[in-house]
């Protein structure tokens, strides 16, 4: 990452000429006021890049301190004992829990979010469209800690019935077996995360569906297609890449969510086959719950796990942005 931030700093001076054609006086940095202002604004941009690089560098440095003291394999160990005399800790359970809870959230949230996006663009009565978008924005504005409190005190008791039902009919699969413990498990976490990432997926998908070419939709309607056929044949193919990147943005949120998981889950350091039995953990949740009693070495170990989370979310978000960017060029060429 360091390399990619250094190169651009030297690059800009030779390039302004082409932009000067469309934008007025891009080379205007001649007067002292102009020079100061350009310096300030370019400095802020560079500062953002420096912060990103610094995050990577400092987390890597602290993480390397921790991993060098680790007397177990950092990637495959099923325990987190930073206080032992030879400290032993590993991220296997956390990686598993983070991925599983995010997958559950995606499985629940993506279809519902796409349906709501279609609802606001194609199904809702015109008068209802504004209020529906507002309701979704409200969902997005609620702080995550309030979701956590609601999840722990309201959602958890309400999951008992569903868990019993899943255990009765699907318990034989092993994934849905339940030992009647409090439902502070991965499935509950997944449901709560699904509610939390719903707004972002809905909002991005809605924007994409809104841009679907109206001519094609009307042509399909004129040929006698039903509304569903129009959506299946004209809207969804157009919006597919947008929905994928929206889902990945949602995935990024779900991977890094801290407080909602920390309040709902009752963690341990075992990988459970069942999604209904309490246990497991996620990167962010583990950091939040282990932090207050961590020794200095323990803090470095938590930073090491945070670095893994940082890299994962960086990859997911970067991929989502690249898909969006490619799509923008594609649609621009056809507009």
């Amino acid at each position, binding site marked *: 990452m360091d390399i990619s931030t250094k*190169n*651009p700093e030297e*690059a*800009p001076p030779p390039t302004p000429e082409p932009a000067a054609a469309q*934008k*007025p*006086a891009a080379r205007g940095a001649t007067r002292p006021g*102009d020079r100061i*202002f350009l310096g*300030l*604004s370019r*400095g*802020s*941009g560079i500062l*953002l*890049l420096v912060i*990103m690089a610094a*995050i990577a560098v400092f987390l890597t440095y602290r993480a390397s301190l921790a991993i060098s003291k680790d007397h177990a394999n950092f990637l495959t160990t099923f325990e987190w004992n930073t206080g032992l005399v030879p400290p032993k800790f590993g991220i296997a359970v956390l990686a598993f829990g983070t991925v599983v809870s995010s997958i559950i959230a995606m499985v629940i949230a993506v*279809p519902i979010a796409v*349906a*709501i996006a279609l*609802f606001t663009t194609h*199904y*809702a009565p015109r008068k209802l469209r504004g209020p529906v978008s507002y309701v*979704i924005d*409200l*969902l997005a*504005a609620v*702080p*995550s*800690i*309030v*979701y*956590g*409190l*609601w999840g722990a005190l*309201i959602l958890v008791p309400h999951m008992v*019935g*569903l868990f019993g*039902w899943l255990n009765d009919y699907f318990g034989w699969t092993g994934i849905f077996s339940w030992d009647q413990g409090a439902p502070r498990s991965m499935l509950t976490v997944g449901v709560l995360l699904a509610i939390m990432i719903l707004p972002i997926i*809905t909002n991005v998908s809605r924007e994409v569906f809104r841009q679907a070419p109206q001519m094609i939709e009307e042509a399909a309607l004129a040929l006698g297609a*039903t*509304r*569903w056929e129009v959506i299946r044949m004209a809207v969804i193919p157009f919006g597919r890449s947008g929905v994928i990147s929206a889902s990945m*943005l949602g995935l*990024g*949120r779900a*991977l*890094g969510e*801290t407080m909602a998981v*920390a*309040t709902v889950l009752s963690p341990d350091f075992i990988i459970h086959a069942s999604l209904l039995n309490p246990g497991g953990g996620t990167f*962010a949740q583990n*950091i*939040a719950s282990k932090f207050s009693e961590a020794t200095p070495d323990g803090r470095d170990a938590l*930073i090491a796990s*945070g670095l893994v*989370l940082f890299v994962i*979310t960086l990859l997911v*978000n970067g991929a989502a942005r690249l898909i969006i960017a490619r799509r923008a060029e594609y649609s621009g060429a056809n507009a």
Partner: protein
Amino acid sequence: MSNAVAAEKPASTLQGATLPTWSPYAIAGGSIVLAVLIGLVGSLDSKVQWGLIAAILFVIGTYVVAARIEGTRQAKDRIATSLVWVAFLLAVVPLVSLLWTTISRGVKVLDVYFLTHSMGVVGDTEPGGGIYHAIIGSLEQVGLATVIGAPIGVLTAIYLVEYGSGALSKAVTFFVDVMTGIPSIVAGLFILSLMLMWDMQPFGFAGSCALAILMMPVVVRSTEEMLKLVPNELREASLALGIPKWRTILKVVLPTAIGGITTGIMLSVARIAGETAPVLLLVFGNPFINNDPFHGAQASLPLYIYQQFAQSAGSGAAYDRAWAASLTLIAFVMILNLVARGIARWKAPKTGR
């Protein structure tokens, strides 16, 4: 009578038979009645199961009726419509439940005493106490974060829109996008690793720095959108009068877009005001009033909610306080949101759209 209408329809050769407009309601009513009957006969006690049975009956009933009268294509269309409606209602349920619980439980202890007292002499499991220290902490941390984050964000956006070209602005655009997705706890860990370097103890301003990192990309994004809306003719007119570029930006471009920029900043403030994870790592929480964000641990509203929940061993008094603090926090965030939207509507640049 409506049957007669339905029967008349096929007279047009261009359109097949259609169900009368009241048929969805009739099928819905029928399936609810059936579901209640099944529930009573099978003595299912969970109302959720009744609802599920009714929903499944409704979908099957719609499909069968529509497929017989209108054909399978129309039947599929009707199922898609009902599924989309169900999805919307599913999203409303948690929101209503969340707002209702927060309000109904929050008003129990929320009063002037609660807003003006700290937890200094109150045990975590005892009744009493308040959130004054947390409000002070939140205001100071979020305020300092805004003072750092907003100018940097706005200046970066100005660079991207007014000066930006070439590899640097491309890199900044990409990393701003990526930065939007940084988990809040990672921003907290970054500042924490800086603090470990110099062996510092938790204090409010450290939290502000992490919050500022979370705020910057949001401000950049929204400001960028707003600056792009400012018509180029305004810039050209100003430059043609011989006004330097920096004064053009300060006196022409920014005032035109100021409404949208303010909205973006307020929305990002609303976002960071609810962040708990970085505050937990960096500010640590403090039951006493600490007005100095640069020395010693402070409290903050979201952190207060978490600690009332986590450190109270299930005490009802602590849960009441947590709900009341949640209500305060939600009210603060919602008011910021509403005001921001109001400003956006009031000051929207007139672009002739």
